[in-house]
Protein backbone atom coordinates (compact mmCIF):
# COMPACT_ATOMS: atom_id res chain seq x y z
CA UNK A 1 0.00 0.00 0.00
CA UNK A 2 1.43 3.35 -1.09
CA UNK A 3 1.59 6.36 1.12
CA UNK A 4 -1.18 8.02 -0.90
CA UNK A 5 -3.50 5.09 -0.30
CA UNK A 6 -2.78 5.43 3.35
CA UNK A 7 -3.67 9.11 3.31
CA UNK A 8 -6.81 8.57 1.28
CA UNK A 9 -8.15 5.66 3.28
CA UNK A 10 -10.81 6.77 5.69
CA UNK A 11 -10.46 5.06 9.05
CA UNK A 12 -13.55 3.23 10.22
CA UNK A 13 -15.44 5.42 12.70
CA UNK A 14 -14.56 4.31 16.22
CA UNK A 15 -18.26 4.10 17.13
CA UNK A 16 -18.71 1.43 14.44
CA UNK A 17 -15.81 -0.55 15.87
CA UNK A 18 -17.28 -0.21 19.38
CA UNK A 19 -20.66 -1.41 18.21
CA UNK A 20 -19.27 -4.48 16.48
CA UNK A 21 -17.12 -5.45 19.49
CA UNK A 22 -20.05 -5.01 21.84
CA UNK A 23 -22.39 -7.00 19.62
CA UNK A 24 -20.06 -9.99 19.81
CA UNK A 25 -19.14 -9.86 23.50
CA UNK A 26 -22.71 -9.23 24.64
CA UNK A 27 -23.96 -12.18 22.59
CA UNK A 28 -21.23 -14.38 24.04
CA UNK A 29 -21.91 -13.34 27.62
CA UNK A 30 -25.64 -13.79 27.21
CA UNK A 31 -25.19 -17.31 25.90
CA UNK A 32 -23.35 -18.35 29.07
CA UNK A 33 -25.39 -16.29 31.51
CA UNK A 34 -26.16 -18.19 34.69
CA UNK A 35 -23.85 -20.95 33.54
CA UNK A 36 -21.36 -22.50 35.96
CA UNK A 37 -18.31 -20.40 36.88
CA UNK A 38 -15.88 -23.05 35.61
CA UNK A 39 -16.98 -22.45 32.02
CA UNK A 40 -14.27 -19.94 30.99
CA UNK A 41 -11.57 -22.19 32.45
CA UNK A 42 -13.01 -25.24 30.76
CA UNK A 43 -13.11 -23.29 27.49
CA UNK A 44 -9.41 -22.58 27.86
CA UNK A 45 -8.51 -26.17 28.60
CA UNK A 46 -10.56 -27.37 25.66
CA UNK A 47 -8.67 -24.91 23.51
CA UNK A 48 -5.38 -26.46 24.61
CA UNK A 49 -6.61 -29.89 23.61
CA UNK A 50 -8.01 -28.76 20.28
CA UNK A 51 -4.80 -26.89 19.52
CA UNK A 52 -2.90 -30.16 19.52
CA UNK A 53 -4.77 -30.99 16.33
CA UNK A 54 -5.90 -27.72 14.76
CA UNK A 55 -4.54 -24.23 15.08
CA UNK A 56 -7.48 -22.17 16.36
CA UNK A 57 -7.95 -19.08 18.49
CA UNK A 58 -9.95 -18.80 21.67
CA UNK A 59 -12.69 -16.89 19.88
CA UNK A 60 -13.18 -19.80 17.47
CA UNK A 61 -14.67 -21.78 20.33
CA UNK A 62 -18.28 -21.06 21.06
CA UNK A 63 -19.91 -22.36 24.19
CA UNK A 64 -23.62 -22.17 24.67
CA UNK A 65 -25.73 -23.27 27.60
CA UNK A 66 -29.31 -24.10 26.66
CA UNK A 67 -31.95 -24.75 29.24
CA UNK A 68 -35.08 -26.63 28.41
CA UNK A 69 -37.62 -28.34 30.63
CA UNK A 70 -35.50 -29.49 33.52
CA UNK A 71 -32.14 -30.18 31.92
CA UNK A 72 -29.25 -28.14 30.60
CA UNK A 73 -27.42 -28.74 27.35
CA UNK A 74 -23.85 -27.60 26.92
CA UNK A 75 -23.26 -26.81 23.28
CA UNK A 76 -19.76 -26.49 21.96
CA UNK A 77 -18.79 -25.46 18.47
CA UNK A 78 -15.36 -24.91 17.01
CA UNK A 79 -14.85 -22.93 13.82
CA UNK A 80 -11.97 -24.63 11.96
CA UNK A 81 -9.65 -22.46 9.91
CA UNK A 82 -10.24 -22.75 6.16
CA UNK A 83 -8.07 -25.19 4.25
CA UNK A 84 -5.60 -25.55 7.14
CA UNK A 85 -4.63 -29.04 7.98
CA UNK A 86 -3.97 -30.06 11.54
CA UNK A 87 -0.56 -29.31 13.04
CA UNK A 88 1.06 -32.55 14.19
Amino acid at each position, binding site marked *: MGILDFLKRKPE*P*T*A*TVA*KERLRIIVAQ*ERSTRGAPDYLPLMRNELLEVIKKYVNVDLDAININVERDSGHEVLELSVALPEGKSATP
Partner: protein
Amino acid sequence: MTAEIIVVTSGKGGVGKTTTSASLATGLAMAGKKVAVIDFDVGLRNLDLIMGCERRVVYDFVNVVNGEATIKQALIKDKRHDNLFVLAASQTRDKDALTQEGVEKVLDDLSNDGFDYVVCDSPAGIEKGAHLAMYFADHAVVVVNPEVSSVRDSDRILGLLSSKTRRAERGEGAITQHLLLTRYNPGRVALGEMLSVKDVEEILGISVVGVIPESENVLAASNAGVPVILDDNSHAGQAYRDTVARILGEERPLRFTEVARKGFLQRVFGG
Protein backbone atom coordinates in the same frame (compact mmCIF):
# COMPACT_ATOMS: atom_id res chain seq x y z
CA MET B 1 -51.81 0.60 48.57
CA THR B 2 -48.23 -0.55 48.37
CA ALA B 3 -45.33 1.64 47.34
CA GLU B 4 -43.75 1.06 43.94
CA ILE B 5 -40.05 0.36 44.36
CA ILE B 6 -37.78 1.73 41.62
CA VAL B 7 -34.08 0.84 41.58
CA VAL B 8 -31.62 3.07 39.72
CA THR B 9 -28.71 0.84 38.81
CA SER B 10 -25.94 0.35 36.22
CA GLY B 11 -23.11 -1.97 37.16
CA LYS B 12 -20.45 0.56 36.25
CA GLY B 13 -19.74 3.50 38.57
CA GLY B 14 -19.81 7.16 37.68
CA VAL B 15 -22.40 6.87 34.93
CA GLY B 16 -25.07 9.07 36.55
CA LYS B 17 -27.08 6.88 38.95
CA THR B 18 -27.11 9.37 41.81
CA THR B 19 -27.80 12.30 39.46
CA THR B 20 -30.69 10.28 38.01
CA SER B 21 -32.04 9.13 41.39
CA ALA B 22 -32.19 12.72 42.64
CA SER B 23 -33.94 13.99 39.51
CA LEU B 24 -36.30 11.03 39.24
CA ALA B 25 -37.38 11.30 42.89
CA THR B 26 -37.85 15.06 42.55
CA GLY B 27 -39.76 14.66 39.28
CA LEU B 28 -42.13 12.09 40.82
CA ALA B 29 -42.69 14.43 43.78
CA MET B 30 -43.43 17.29 41.36
CA ALA B 31 -46.09 15.03 39.83
CA GLY B 32 -47.76 14.93 43.26
CA LYS B 33 -46.50 11.54 44.41
CA LYS B 34 -45.24 10.87 47.91
CA VAL B 35 -41.65 9.79 47.38
CA ALA B 36 -38.70 8.54 49.41
CA VAL B 37 -35.25 8.27 47.85
CA ILE B 38 -32.75 5.97 49.56
CA ASP B 39 -28.96 6.00 49.20
CA PHE B 40 -27.79 2.35 49.19
CA ASP B 41 -24.12 3.26 48.77
CA VAL B 42 -22.95 2.23 52.24
CA GLY B 43 -19.69 3.97 53.08
CA LEU B 44 -19.94 6.48 50.23
CA ARG B 45 -22.84 8.76 51.10
CA ASN B 46 -23.49 11.17 48.19
CA LEU B 47 -27.18 11.48 47.46
CA ASP B 48 -27.59 13.93 50.36
CA LEU B 49 -25.16 16.33 48.64
CA ILE B 50 -26.92 16.09 45.29
CA MET B 51 -30.28 16.65 47.01
CA GLY B 52 -28.81 19.52 49.03
CA CYS B 53 -29.68 18.13 52.47
CA GLU B 54 -26.22 17.03 53.68
CA ARG B 55 -26.26 19.23 56.77
CA ARG B 56 -29.55 17.83 57.98
CA VAL B 57 -28.53 14.17 58.16
CA VAL B 58 -28.93 12.93 61.75
CA TYR B 59 -29.77 9.27 61.36
CA ASP B 60 -29.05 7.06 58.36
CA PHE B 61 -30.28 3.89 56.68
CA VAL B 62 -28.15 1.59 58.84
CA ASN B 63 -29.37 3.26 62.05
CA VAL B 64 -32.91 2.40 60.99
CA VAL B 65 -32.02 -1.17 60.04
CA ASN B 66 -30.32 -1.62 63.44
CA GLY B 67 -33.27 -0.16 65.31
CA GLU B 68 -31.24 2.82 66.56
CA ALA B 69 -33.71 5.22 64.98
CA THR B 70 -37.22 5.01 63.56
CA ILE B 71 -37.79 5.54 59.86
CA LYS B 72 -39.68 8.75 60.72
CA GLN B 73 -36.67 10.11 62.58
CA ALA B 74 -34.27 9.25 59.78
CA LEU B 75 -36.23 10.57 56.79
CA ILE B 76 -35.11 14.07 55.80
CA LYS B 77 -37.87 16.21 54.36
CA ASP B 78 -36.90 17.99 51.15
CA LYS B 79 -36.71 21.79 51.41
CA ARG B 80 -38.60 22.28 48.17
CA HIS B 81 -41.25 19.57 48.19
CA ASP B 82 -43.28 18.51 51.25
CA ASN B 83 -43.94 15.08 49.76
CA LEU B 84 -40.28 14.19 49.11
CA PHE B 85 -37.95 12.55 51.64
CA VAL B 86 -34.33 11.42 51.63
CA LEU B 87 -32.83 8.52 53.56
CA ALA B 88 -29.05 8.93 53.71
CA ALA B 89 -26.51 6.11 53.40
CA SER B 90 -24.44 5.22 56.40
CA GLN B 91 -20.77 6.23 56.41
CA THR B 92 -19.78 2.98 58.14
CA ARG B 93 -17.10 0.91 56.50
CA ASP B 94 -18.93 -2.27 57.43
CA LYS B 95 -20.26 -3.51 54.10
CA ASP B 96 -22.47 -6.03 55.87
CA ALA B 97 -24.35 -3.35 57.78
CA LEU B 98 -27.39 -3.79 55.53
CA THR B 99 -29.29 -7.06 55.59
CA GLN B 100 -32.04 -8.30 53.33
CA GLU B 101 -34.50 -8.50 56.24
CA GLY B 102 -33.52 -4.99 57.36
CA VAL B 103 -34.06 -3.53 53.92
CA GLU B 104 -37.36 -5.34 53.55
CA LYS B 105 -38.59 -3.93 56.86
CA VAL B 106 -37.70 -0.36 55.88
CA LEU B 107 -39.46 -0.72 52.51
CA ASP B 108 -42.55 -2.23 54.20
CA ASP B 109 -42.63 0.62 56.71
CA LEU B 110 -42.49 3.18 53.90
CA SER B 111 -45.28 1.37 52.12
CA ASN B 112 -47.41 1.43 55.29
CA ASP B 113 -46.66 5.13 55.73
CA GLY B 114 -48.43 5.83 52.45
CA PHE B 115 -45.47 6.38 50.15
CA ASP B 116 -46.29 6.02 46.45
CA TYR B 117 -42.69 5.53 45.28
CA VAL B 118 -39.40 4.51 46.81
CA VAL B 119 -36.37 5.26 44.62
CA CYS B 120 -33.31 3.15 45.48
CA ASP B 121 -29.98 4.68 44.40
CA SER B 122 -27.74 1.64 43.88
CA PRO B 123 -24.00 1.53 44.47
CA ALA B 124 -21.79 0.47 41.56
CA GLY B 125 -20.80 -3.16 41.07
CA ILE B 126 -22.78 -6.36 41.34
CA GLU B 127 -21.91 -7.12 44.96
CA LYS B 128 -24.14 -7.17 48.00
CA GLY B 129 -25.06 -3.46 48.03
CA ALA B 130 -26.16 -3.46 44.40
CA HIS B 131 -28.00 -6.73 44.96
CA LEU B 132 -29.91 -5.38 47.97
CA ALA B 133 -30.83 -2.20 46.08
CA MET B 134 -32.43 -4.19 43.26
CA TYR B 135 -33.81 -7.18 45.16
CA PHE B 136 -37.23 -5.76 46.12
CA ALA B 137 -37.71 -3.59 43.03
CA ASP B 138 -40.83 -3.48 40.88
CA HIS B 139 -39.18 -1.24 38.29
CA ALA B 140 -35.59 -0.62 37.28
CA VAL B 141 -33.94 2.34 35.63
CA VAL B 142 -30.70 1.08 34.11
CA VAL B 143 -28.39 4.04 33.56
CA VAL B 144 -25.99 3.60 30.67
CA ASN B 145 -23.42 5.84 28.97
CA PRO B 146 -22.63 5.54 25.25
CA GLU B 147 -19.34 3.84 25.96
CA VAL B 148 -18.23 0.19 25.65
CA SER B 149 -17.69 -0.79 29.29
CA SER B 150 -20.89 0.85 30.45
CA VAL B 151 -22.97 -0.86 27.76
CA ARG B 152 -21.51 -4.26 28.55
CA ASP B 153 -22.06 -3.79 32.30
CA SER B 154 -25.64 -2.74 31.77
CA ASP B 155 -26.30 -5.95 29.86
CA ARG B 156 -25.00 -7.85 32.89
CA ILE B 157 -27.33 -5.86 35.13
CA LEU B 158 -30.33 -6.45 32.86
CA GLY B 159 -29.61 -10.18 33.20
CA LEU B 160 -29.44 -9.97 37.00
CA LEU B 161 -32.66 -7.95 37.14
CA SER B 162 -34.52 -10.69 35.34
CA SER B 163 -33.19 -13.48 37.55
CA LYS B 164 -31.92 -12.23 40.92
CA THR B 165 -34.83 -10.17 42.23
CA ARG B 166 -37.64 -11.18 44.56
CA ARG B 167 -40.16 -10.85 41.73
CA ALA B 168 -38.10 -13.18 39.54
CA GLU B 169 -37.56 -15.68 42.34
CA ARG B 170 -41.24 -15.77 43.23
CA GLY B 171 -42.34 -15.82 39.61
CA GLU B 172 -44.40 -12.66 40.24
CA GLY B 173 -43.86 -11.26 36.77
CA ALA B 174 -40.86 -9.49 35.38
CA ILE B 175 -39.80 -6.17 36.80
CA THR B 176 -40.20 -3.28 34.34
CA GLN B 177 -36.84 -2.38 32.86
CA HIS B 178 -36.20 1.17 31.68
CA LEU B 179 -32.96 1.94 29.88
CA LEU B 180 -31.77 5.51 30.41
CA LEU B 181 -28.94 6.72 28.19
CA THR B 182 -27.08 9.60 29.83
CA ARG B 183 -24.10 11.85 29.07
CA TYR B 184 -25.06 11.72 25.41
CA ASN B 185 -23.20 13.98 23.01
CA PRO B 186 -25.03 14.28 19.65
CA GLY B 187 -22.09 16.13 18.11
CA ARG B 188 -19.71 13.26 18.73
CA VAL B 189 -22.32 10.77 17.57
CA ALA B 190 -22.60 12.67 14.28
CA LEU B 191 -18.82 12.44 13.88
CA GLY B 192 -18.88 8.69 14.42
CA GLU B 193 -16.99 9.01 17.69
CA MET B 194 -19.76 7.87 20.01
CA LEU B 195 -22.34 5.08 20.00
CA SER B 196 -25.75 6.39 18.96
CA VAL B 197 -29.11 5.85 20.70
CA LYS B 198 -29.94 3.32 18.01
CA ASP B 199 -26.61 1.48 18.43
CA VAL B 200 -27.15 1.08 22.18
CA GLU B 201 -30.76 -0.02 21.68
CA GLU B 202 -29.72 -2.59 19.11
CA ILE B 203 -26.89 -4.03 21.19
CA LEU B 204 -28.99 -4.36 24.34
CA GLY B 205 -32.23 -5.25 22.59
CA ILE B 206 -34.35 -2.77 24.53
CA SER B 207 -35.43 0.76 23.75
CA VAL B 208 -34.55 3.79 25.84
CA VAL B 209 -36.97 5.51 28.20
CA GLY B 210 -34.96 8.70 27.83
CA VAL B 211 -31.73 10.27 26.63
CA ILE B 212 -30.01 12.81 28.88
CA PRO B 213 -27.45 14.96 27.05
CA GLU B 214 -24.00 15.61 28.44
CA SER B 215 -24.49 19.01 30.04
CA GLU B 216 -22.51 21.54 32.03
CA ASN B 217 -25.63 22.24 34.03
CA VAL B 218 -25.32 18.89 35.79
CA LEU B 219 -22.12 19.98 37.51
CA ALA B 220 -23.64 23.37 38.33
CA ALA B 221 -26.68 21.63 39.82
CA SER B 222 -24.57 19.32 41.96
CA ASN B 223 -22.44 22.27 43.09
CA ALA B 224 -25.61 23.96 44.29
CA GLY B 225 -27.27 20.85 45.74
CA VAL B 226 -30.30 21.28 43.49
CA PRO B 227 -31.34 18.25 41.38
CA VAL B 228 -30.83 19.20 37.72
CA ILE B 229 -34.47 18.44 36.89
CA LEU B 230 -35.28 21.71 38.68
CA ASP B 231 -33.12 23.62 36.20
CA ASP B 232 -35.80 24.43 33.66
CA ASN B 233 -33.39 26.11 31.29
CA SER B 234 -31.03 23.18 30.91
CA HIS B 235 -31.47 20.50 28.30
CA ALA B 236 -30.50 17.87 30.86
CA GLY B 237 -33.24 19.10 33.21
CA GLN B 238 -35.83 19.08 30.43
CA ALA B 239 -34.75 15.61 29.30
CA TYR B 240 -35.18 14.35 32.88
CA ARG B 241 -38.69 15.87 32.97
CA ASP B 242 -39.57 14.01 29.78
CA THR B 243 -38.13 10.81 31.21
CA VAL B 244 -40.16 11.00 34.43
CA ALA B 245 -43.31 11.71 32.40
CA ARG B 246 -42.63 8.60 30.29
CA ILE B 247 -42.06 6.48 33.38
CA LEU B 248 -45.46 7.70 34.57
CA GLY B 249 -46.95 6.47 31.29
CA GLU B 250 -46.99 9.59 29.13
CA GLU B 251 -45.71 9.47 25.55
CA ARG B 252 -43.19 12.11 24.65
CA PRO B 253 -40.79 12.29 21.71
CA LEU B 254 -37.04 12.25 22.39
CA ARG B 255 -35.37 15.66 22.42
CA PHE B 256 -31.76 16.85 22.32
CA THR B 257 -30.55 13.74 20.47
CA GLU B 258 -29.63 15.58 17.25
CA VAL B 259 -26.95 18.18 16.74
CA ALA B 260 -28.62 21.48 17.58
CA ARG B 261 -29.30 23.39 14.38
CA LYS B 262 -28.55 27.04 14.70
CA GLY B 263 -31.50 29.38 14.50
CA PHE B 264 -31.86 31.75 11.56
CA LEU B 265 -30.47 34.79 13.40
CA GLN B 266 -27.54 32.79 14.75
CA ARG B 267 -26.73 31.59 11.26
CA VAL B 268 -26.79 35.10 9.86
CA PHE B 269 -24.99 36.84 12.68
CA GLY B 270 -22.91 33.95 13.97
CA GLY B 271 -22.62 32.82 17.58
